């Protein structure tokens, strides 16, 4: 459509008088400040920050194009894994109200309000530690107490949220790249490795999600340089990534599969989305490199004429050996198993951690010149006294190798978890029943249950088989990781949470089932493990095999009595060590499950790194 205008001929002189009609119309202007216009719901004004949700990750400060945001340390806030004690402070002399900080905020705590007035003579008042009405009751006022004449950064309206974070429009990617896995129906039939590993493109894409706030590095017991090695993967340099990993962790193929991934719990992206798959990325880096030695070219320092004995070739022992070997010491590792890995060798079933991956890490450490003496049980094949005499320092990384029993009636008829796992992984396979009951709610119990299920499918093809678990803990406090529980459920394992074992029923010296009683509570007021039961509520589970997986303890029987007496323990029955892993016997250092409460590989590695420093200092005479 086209309006024809008067191009030819001159326009009229009288036309403009048409405007006179506006004299009789109401004015369109507002009589400010008596009449106010409400700012829009998306108004980008001053910041609001929910301190409970804020993790102090500092992404807002990193993205700010004007460097208006600084992270300020707040002494009242306690820093913990996944939360720094820093909060953003905004300089309104610099802020351009673009709201990028809101769109990058992973927990969504930072928002913009609809206030935009601030007049003051002091420039210092233009720096604002962003808070919201939740913790700042003084400066946020309800509508009836608020006056526009006093409006400033210290006089703001309550519940006046404007531009806020929406996950759909966030600058970070909340979804992780899904890991290709073997389907539950297929994987439960054999011991094939469940997780297939990222391809190059998938790994790069997953690595690109990392915002590099480094909350994970604080949370990791061994403080791996996670953001650096993830960035190296993003830049398609797996060798550099691996080099970064090896600074703190010499067993990435193992950790890349079974690490408890405290980093992922701390990841700021996990607050509203899925955390970066740090563990799978580590696995990718180690899988990408065929031969660590060729790529990394690590060389031990000049030889030092001191000998160190490492007892136990678990993650801790391997790491101590690696760190000390790089420093130039002569290191010998003793282990009763036929290969390295310790608990890693017997514990995690092959579908989670294949033996080849363990051997890849162990053989690299061996190639650096660490001497391994496998199939050597200390106390039987070699005496601890001899080691104590012949070596300059000893590291104990013996782990928890004795399975606890429930000690209920007929419990001697039950299998113990470690025995079961070990026989299946490195011995001959156990003959399993058709209906198996696993007692326990931890990761070991789930490993046992899933392994038992696979054995059932192999030994009774095409037949109906059942594996069920019984645990004291209910769903909400079950110690096993969510991921494991979900995987187990998908494979068809039945769970009976909140039940305690009472008796294993026997008929004709054959297991018939397990009698359970309902759990009232698991912990007492001091959060100590002290289960109570409703004695009258009973349940009978049918089954022809019972496996107990309720925890393990250490075995110190190889240490001679007079030495053992000198060894001090903490109230929680752990070996007492200094910050460098030194026990009360100066020559003996310790780490791993016998020292810490985390009971996992990465904490053992962290202990080992400190112990290696300690042994180094000790042997150098400091």
């Amino acid at each position: 459509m086209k309006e024809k205008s008067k191009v030819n001929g001159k326009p009229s002189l009288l036309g403009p008088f048409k405007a006179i009609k506006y004299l009789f119309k109401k004015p369109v202007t507002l009589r400010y400040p008596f009449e106010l216009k409400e700012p829009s719901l998306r108004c980008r004004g001053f910041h609001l920050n929910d301190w409970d949700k804020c993790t102090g990750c500092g992404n807002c400060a990193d993205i700010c194009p004007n460097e208006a945001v600084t992270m300020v340390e707040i002494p009242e806030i306690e820093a913990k894994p996944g939360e720094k004690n820093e909060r953003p402070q905004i300089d309104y002399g610099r802020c351009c109200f673009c709201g990028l900080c809101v769109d990058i905020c992973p927990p969504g705590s930072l928002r913009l309000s609809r206030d935009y007035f601030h007049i003051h003579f002091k420039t210092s008042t233009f720096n604002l530690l962003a808070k919201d009405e939740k913790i700042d009751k003084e400066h946020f006022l309800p509508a009836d107490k608020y006056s526009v004449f006093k409006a400033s950064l210290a006089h703001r309206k309550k519940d006046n949220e404007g531009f806020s974070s929406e996950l759909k429009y966030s600058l970070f990617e909340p979804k992780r790249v899904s890991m290709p896995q073997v389907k539950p129906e297929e994987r439960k039939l054999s011991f094939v490795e469940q997780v297939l590993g990222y391809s190059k493109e998938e790994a790069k894409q997953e690595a690109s999600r990392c915002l590099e706030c480094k909350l994970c590095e604080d949370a990791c017991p061994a403080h791996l340089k996670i953001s650096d090695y993830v960035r190296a993967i993003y830049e398609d340099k797996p060798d550099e990534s691996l080099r970064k990993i090896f600074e703190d962790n010499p067993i990435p193929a193992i950790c890349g599969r079974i690490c408890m991934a405290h980093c992922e719990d701390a990841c700021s992206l996990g607050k509203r989305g899925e955390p970066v798959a740090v563990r799978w990325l580590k696995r990718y880096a180690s899988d990408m490199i065929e031969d660590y030695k060729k790529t990394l070219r690590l060389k031990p320092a000049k030889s030092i004429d001191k000998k160190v004995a490492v007892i136990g070739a678990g993650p801790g022992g391997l790491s101590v050996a690696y760190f000390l070997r790089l420093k130039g010491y002569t290191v010998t590792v003793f282990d009763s198993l036929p290969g390295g890995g310790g608990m890693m060798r017997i514990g995690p079933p092959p579908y989670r951690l294949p033996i080849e991956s363990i051997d890849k890490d162990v053989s690299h450490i061996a190639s650096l010149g660490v001497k391994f003496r496998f199939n050597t049980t200390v106390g039987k094949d070699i005496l601890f006294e001899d080691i104590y005499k012949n070596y300059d320092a000893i590291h104990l990384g013996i782990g928890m190798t004795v399975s606890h029993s429930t000690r209920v009636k007929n419990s001697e008829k039950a299998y113990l978890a470690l025995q079961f796992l070990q026989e299946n992984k490195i011995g001959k396979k156990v003959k399993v029943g058709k209906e198996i009951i696993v007692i326990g709610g931890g990761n070991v119990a789930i490993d046992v249950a899933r392994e038992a299920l696979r054995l059932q499918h192999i030994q009774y093809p095409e037949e109906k088989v059942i594996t069920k678990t019984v645990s004291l803990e209910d769903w909400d406090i079950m110690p096993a990781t969510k991921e494991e529980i979900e995987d187990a459920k998908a494979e068809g394992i039945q769970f009976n949470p909140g039940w305690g074992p009472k008796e294993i029923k026997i008929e004709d010296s054959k297991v018939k089932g397990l009698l359970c009683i309902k759990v009232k509570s698991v912990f007492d007021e001091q959060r100590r493990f002290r289960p109570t039961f409703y004695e009258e509520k009973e349940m009978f589970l049918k089954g022809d095999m019972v496996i107990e997986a309720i925890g393990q303890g250490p075995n110190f029987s190889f240490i001679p009595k007079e030495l053992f007496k000198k060894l001090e323990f903490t109230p929680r029955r752990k070996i007492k060590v200094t910050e460098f892993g030194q026990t009360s016997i100066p020559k003996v250092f310790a780490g791993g499950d016998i020292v810490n409460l985390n009971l996992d590989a990465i904490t053992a590695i962290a202990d080992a790194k400190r112990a290696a420093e300690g042994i180094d200092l000790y042997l150098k005479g400091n």
Partner: protein
Amino acid sequence: MRELELYFGPQHLGMVGNFSITLKVEGDQILEAHANPGWLHRGFEKLMEYRTWIQNFPLVCRINVIEPDSMEMVYAMAVEKLAKIEVPERANYIRAIVLELSRLASHLFGCWAYANMLGFDTVAQWAMYHRDLILDLFEQLTGARVYHIYICPGGVRRDLPEGFKEKALNTLHTIGGCIPDYDATFFNNRLFYERAKGIGKITREEAKELGVTGQILRATGINFDIRKVEPYAVYDKVDFEIPTREDGDAYSRVWIIRDEMIQSVHTIMQCLEKIPEGEVYKRVPNPFKWNIPKGETYVRVESSRGELGLYMVSNGKDKPYRVHFRTPSYPHGLLVLEKLLKNASIADVGNIMISLYVTAPEIDR
């Protein structure tokens, strides 16, 4: 008569914006004019080399205060071309709506400036009020009135809010309904006609030679509009016309602005009608790890003043290697202005300058 040198601006009642002209005058006739930009040179192109792709996006809109959206658009388009990002269809519609709204706001602002300059204060107040209604729409949609920071690489930052369509239609009807009043008091006003007719006349050949685009070019009869020549957003899917005139003087330029406002109103209504459901934002990579592959591109959009182009080079890093804006006011405010002022009278300096629709911040960048 004596030859004098007269400094016109940057502090001068007849000057809109931070711009100055040095005039060589004899009596009230201008012998020679030298445009003197740079009062607002902030070195944006250099600053952008220091910021990441995402950090640049709140910056670009500041190059032109009056019409920030086409700046955002051209930046987003260049980044999308280099990074090979496809924008969702709904986002393209919203972009077109935003761009047309901002064209409308800019033209109204231009009407204010011109009317104010020539003493038609009533019209100026109306234009300012109607522009404010559009800013209200912008506030509702983007959260800010002037620097919207809304069209981002990958789409737009938020979907249309609830009730936006009704409110937008309401505003458009209000503005469209006032066009007859504008006509009577301003565009078809005899006083205005006498003041603008024949002023600042430029021929088709001269315009081509000086690299002129936008209304100034269309006022000489060349039907050249990038929305038609090289459609972006959804301009190939909506029906609108490009008004042209033959005279090439200030009067026809202003009439083109008026006709374009009507076209804009119709375009926005069509977009609001046709807009499909769907996503409005395709997530761009993590801003801390976004490296755009090596490459270069030149993209252009039709801003309210003419061809707005952006030459961008990436060297594969997380920041642009070089950006260079080709702003429409650049040829208009320098060469064309100097040419038109020659032999004009002092009283017409502001008149000519505003009829060229020059915005100083665009020249300086």
